[in-house]
């Protein structure tokens, strides 16, 4: 699933490590999500949205059918 985490993270001036720390995951997890190698659980998706001050909808793009 495509996401805009990198864009919103950079807009907030956060590093991958800092975002990982705020979301209580490892930097590798954030890196994998940003590169589309791993889709986060709903729990982490909401946590990411909260930290980046956006909605889950804005953060993740569903696959077009």
């Amino acid at each position, binding site marked *: 699933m495509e996401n805009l985490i990198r864009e919103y993270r950079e807009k907030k001036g956060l590093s991958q490590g800092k975002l990982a720390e705020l979301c209580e*995951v*490892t930097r*590798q997890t954030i890196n994998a999500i940003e590169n589309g190698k*791993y889709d986060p659980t709903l729990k982490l998706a909401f946590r990411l949205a909260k930290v980046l001050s956006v909605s889950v909808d804005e953060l993740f793009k569903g696959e077009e059918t």
Partner: protein
Amino acid sequence: MSKKQIKWLSVVLLLSIMAVIGFMIYRYYVGNSVNYYGIFTISLLAASLFELNTFGETSFLGSYNQDEKGDELEEHIVKVSSKISYFVLLVILFIILLITDLTGKSNLPIMLALCAAILTLPVIQFIVSKKYQ
């Protein structure tokens, strides 16, 4: 665990594996017997070595930090690897059975292990699916 600690522990594990292999070779030449406990020890040490270099911790040596919650990606890697390992194990069992069969020996325990392995996944899936009905 720091990278330096991981490196040192990996070296210790590698040396231990080499020591056990050396001891097994020695026992084979002196007593002409295979040390089965040695094979078991090597598998435990090798598993710890891989786990240490994947997650920076090892469950076999009991150094997991119980207070620390598992990372999401780590849990995902464990889940995916478990599925792959199951099928790899099935293939390995089948190959062992085939080899013993080709050498003219019957190997009932391996045959039973293979059948149990084939049955395990669908049976567990059936039981787990009941939980969600």
